[in-house]
């Protein structure tokens, strides 16, 4: 188990909250992969196992009115933002009671009521959309911010460049959060990206770029919160690179043969759940029994949700032709 590194500790309630969220994300992703293999989820899934601290840490600093756009690897962000597991699992199974009435699926988790403005399946496309959400905040003078998540591979696409530049020129309250998990599909970062850190690219936009340990939810919380306060105060966007790792393949049944020997094992030692749990145990905020109880409860809940979702009806065929235009 990981040695106890220490950073400025979060309040116990916050720690309990983010620990539970990370555990929920982990358990949900495990079950989702199972549903995919059982053919109850069609097409594809992109798991964020190993990256839970990014979702939980960032979501914990958001305030009502803040918005998020993210990617197909977006289940963690949805759970961390409070999307109901029922709406999420039903959506992945294409059920009428899904978050998007079954129209979106695994790659498009969306809940406008929570400010989750959509997970996107086109690499980089969510960045300009977040810039627009931040424009609304600036024009309407709310103190809201727009957060957009993307991978290190996405930093090579044109939309990334244009979005960061426009946000900088207009000094918009956007946090560009790169979850650098080392791979874009099957390609290691160094084969596609001639810089060591994505954060280094912030200089091209006269914007701060910071590098954060994406496995340490407490560090993520503190760093992102500071950037958010800055943005709320009208000081403009920040590019935040969360160094992280995906413990599973890119999608579907990818076994990640492209990983160098031993790399995964090294990263498994930095499991974000284990890291926080260790600190909480050291601080007497949880013990193994309580932890196991919590995990059991989470797994039972997911099991119940899945059974419920299985029994839910598919959408009626006429819904194919609905929601294309707003009528009226």
């Amino acid at each position, binding site marked *: 188990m990981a040695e106890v590194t220490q950073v400025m500790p979060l309040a116990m309630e916050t720690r309990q909250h983010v620990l539970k969220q990370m555990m929920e994300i982990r358990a949900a992703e495990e079950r989702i992969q199972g549903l995919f293999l059982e053919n109850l989820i069609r097409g594809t899934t992109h798991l964020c196992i190993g990256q839970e601290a990014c979702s939980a840490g960032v979501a914990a600093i958001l305030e009502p009115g803040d918005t998020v756009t993210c990617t197909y690897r977006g289940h963690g962000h949805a759970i961390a933002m409070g999307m109901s597991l029922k709406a999420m699992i039903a959506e992945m199974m294409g059920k009428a009671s899904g978050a998007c009435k079954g129209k979106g699926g695994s790659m498009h988790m*969306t809940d406008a009521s929570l400010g989750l403005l959509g997970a996107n399946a086109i690499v980089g496309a969510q960045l300009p959309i977040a810039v*627009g*959400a931040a424009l609304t905040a600036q024009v309407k003078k709310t103190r809201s911010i727009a957060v957009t998540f993307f991978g290190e591979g996405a930093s090579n696409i044109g939309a990334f460049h244009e*979005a960061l530049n*426009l946000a900088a020129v207009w000094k918009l309250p956007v946090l560009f959060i790169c979850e650098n998990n080392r791979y874009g599909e099957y390609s290691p970062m160094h084969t596609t990206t001639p810089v060591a850190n994505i954060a280094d690219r912030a200089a091209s936009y006269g914007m701060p770029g910071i590098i954060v340990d994406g496995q340490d939810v407490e560090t993520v919380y503190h760093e992102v919160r500071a950037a958010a306060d800055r943005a709320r105060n009208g000081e403009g966007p920040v590019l935040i690179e969360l160094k992280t790792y995906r413990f599973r393949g890119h999608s579907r049944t990818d076994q990640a043969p492209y990983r160098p020997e031993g790399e995964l094992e090294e990263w498994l030692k930095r499991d974000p759940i284990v890291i926080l749990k260790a600190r909480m145990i050291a601080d007497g905020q949880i013990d193994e029994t309580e932890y196991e109880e919590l995990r059991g409860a989470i797994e039972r809940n997911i099991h119940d949700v899945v059974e419920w979702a299985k029994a839910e009806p598919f959408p009626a065929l006429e819904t194919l032709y609905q*929601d*294309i*235009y707003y009528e009226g």
Partner: protein
Amino acid sequence: MTYREAATKALVDAMRADENVVLFGEDVGIAGGVFKVTPGLYEEFGGSRVRDTPISEQAFIGAALGAAITGLRPIAELMFADFIPVAMDQIVNQIAKYRYMSGGQFVVPLTIRAAQGAGAGFGTQHSQCAESWLMNIPGLRIVVPGTVADMYGLLRSAIEENNPVIVLEHKVLYNFAEDVPDQLTHVPIGKAIVRRAGKDVTVVATQLVMQRSLEAAEILAQEGIDVEVIDLRTMAPLDEGTILTSLAKTHRLIVVEEAPHAGGWGGDIVSMAADKGIYWLDAPVKRVNMGGALVAYSPPLEDEVVPNVKRISQAIRDLMSE
């Protein structure tokens, strides 16, 4: 009033009517726009609502979507319609699909303006018409004003529409002047109009070639051919009724497009007629367009490629003698 002035007035009136309307694009602010459609807006509405952008079409078209789903009513100017492909992913995969993919969670009230068409000597990459590139994308509305009053009325309706609307302004018409009523009104999206009633043949057209079809109709009137000219006004959704009603009367149809033939929007008009109006058709249905050509710079070539009065009249004569 000119077509350009009508566009400016529509923007001003819309921004006065609703403070959520914002406008941005390259040089639309301080400089008043490359086509001089936005002079004075920056001064009247200020730098928060009227913004110049970097040369970043993907970013500001995507930003229009993000702004639209969070409470603003953005108008993004793309300058030349030929630049639509630069921001095509945001239009095709995002703007058009955002409501659908979310199961109806979003309303997307945004307007994209662009100047299209040949005739100004800008060459192959600055003279295209974009509607035919976009019609296979459910989720978009597309309007193509062809008169001064329509420029005003369709743009006002586009800005107030609670769905994404692409407004394609014809750059050769910007200086086109017409007398208009003091009270310009909104023009409904989705309704075509009969610009000239006639009994012998139906011509369906838009914008510049619609104006030319009207000229051709006057010439043919002398020859005893009574042409009905329909201005589509909206490309998506198509107004089938107006066309079928006309066809039931004339039994002959010609579509005049400013577009290459293959994949041109005329195909939809004809296929609609060949389905719902087949028993009325007394003759082959013709399409007058750019054929297989692109717009070339050389003046005589550019003047030839877009259907002109001569080509349109001849096509109508030929059809009448079928």
